[in-house]
């Protein structure tokens, strides 16, 4: 059985923030987006995008877990026995996710209740494990941190965009602020407004299938906008 570790350059390159490092962050935001291009992490993207607040909490949690696990795995990469590396990676992720869960439980209990099972499911989020195996096991902690940051944000941005449409069209709210709907509590009251009197919130947008539609439209828009992503075949 051959060692799978990538041989590193003998001369350590100094830590800098140049073109290559910038690409580590910007690439997952656009050309290599975890959700719209790699189609990873769809499960949680469907589940937690009913509201901007939940999506934001989830995005922050995933960024934290992504960066944290990337850095730890990368720092330990020479010590981790290759035979058990998957298990070690999983333990690192699970630990960080538990830390997130405990933190939410202590400081943001409402979000903890709403996100409940999905926080635990970050462990199985393919993006995190994928980055560890593909990047952190072969690169220095510094680059791994940037890669984790890029991928976490790339995931979080899509989550927020999906949540924006679902919350606004489904409930007429953003971050829980009531913007449009029937009743005095909304900023635009459709019962009395002349311009928006026709508007009715679309209940389907609150349900999970709508996230599929929104993500599909996002993928389509992303590909139409970025010619690099168009399949030539």
């Amino acid at each position, binding site marked *: *059985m051959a*060692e799978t570790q990538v041989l590193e350059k003998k001369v350590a390159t100094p830590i800098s923030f140049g073109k290559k490092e910038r690409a580590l962050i910007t690439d997952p935001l656009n050309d290599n987006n975890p959700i719209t291009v790699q189609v990873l992490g769809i499960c949680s993207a469907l*589940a937690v995008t009913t509201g901007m607040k939940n999506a934001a909490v989830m995005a922050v949690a995933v960024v934290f877990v992504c960066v944290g696990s990337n850095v730890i795995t990368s720092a330990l990469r020479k*010590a*981790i*026995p*290759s*035979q*058990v590396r998957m*298990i*070690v990676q999983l*333990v690192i992720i699970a*630990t960080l996710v*538990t*830390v997130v869960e*405990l*933190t939410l*439980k*202590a*400081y943001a*209990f*409402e979000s903890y*209740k709403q996100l409940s*099972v999905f926080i635990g499911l970050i462990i199985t989020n393919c993006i995190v494990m994928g980055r560890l195996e593909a990047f952190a096991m072969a690169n220095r902690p510094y680059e791994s941190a940037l890669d984790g940051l890029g991928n976490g944000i790339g995931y979080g941005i899509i989550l927020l965009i999906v949540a924006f449409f679902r919350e606004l069209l489904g409930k007429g709210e953003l971050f829980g602020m009531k913007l449009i709907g029937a009743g005095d*509590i909304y900023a635009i009251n459709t019962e009395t407004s002349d311009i928006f009197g026709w508007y009715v919130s679309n209940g389907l947008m*609150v*349900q*999970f299938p709508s996230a599929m539609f929104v993500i599909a439209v996002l993928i389509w828009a992303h590909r139409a906008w970025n010619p690099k992503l168009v399949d030539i075949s």
Partner: protein
Amino acid sequence: MHSTRSIVIFVLIMTTVVSLLLAFLSSAWAQRSKDNALLYAKKATLGAVSQHLDMDYASINNDQVDDIFSNQVEQKVLRMDGTELTKEEVEALGYAGGQAENVDILKEMKKPESERVLPLFIYKKKSGDKFYILSATGKGLWDVIWGCVAVESDLRTLAGVSFDHKAETPGLGAEIKDNKTWVKQFTGTKIYDEQGNYTSVYVRKGGAKDPDYEVDGISGATITANGVSEMLKRGLKYYEPYLKSI
């Protein structure tokens, strides 16, 4: 290639470090999470009288919840025969604090029926109206469901309910908690008929036939809805000896 020995040592060190770290965090924040959980339960209890609060329930903050609980809510813990337990007796059951808010209704659910204790909250509105908030537990599709039911001072009309669940499907069974319109249907329904016979409130699939004693079901969540019916029918009956005594 690492030797088996080095792998075992690595894994042992890793698990020790991880478990120590998590155990430390968990115990350091235990009190905080406990307080949060209690506050969350208090807020859910007030959810049953959300339409009768002196403020808007949706924007209520934690201090207001504590304030209402200390000034406007009377707590009692009842035996199945309707008599009240003293604070010491409740503490002897393992509920530190000895108040109704400390009683774990899910734990009570596992005891034999005759040994259970029932938490009761009496909410007094500033105008003087009294609401009796009863608790009930039952089974949904996947796991336990529970809820608080507020009864008006005529002891038969419901003033509101709030349900919660452990693992019902979001968008289907979880609607018992999330769908405020569905929950609102319970307001104004009655658990006793004109003659004083116990009727409870029934969640009817296909739509309520008698709006006084029935509410509409939830499409795609028949089993959860039936669980709610069963929970109310059995759970509210437990309070009958007490309600009859006042």
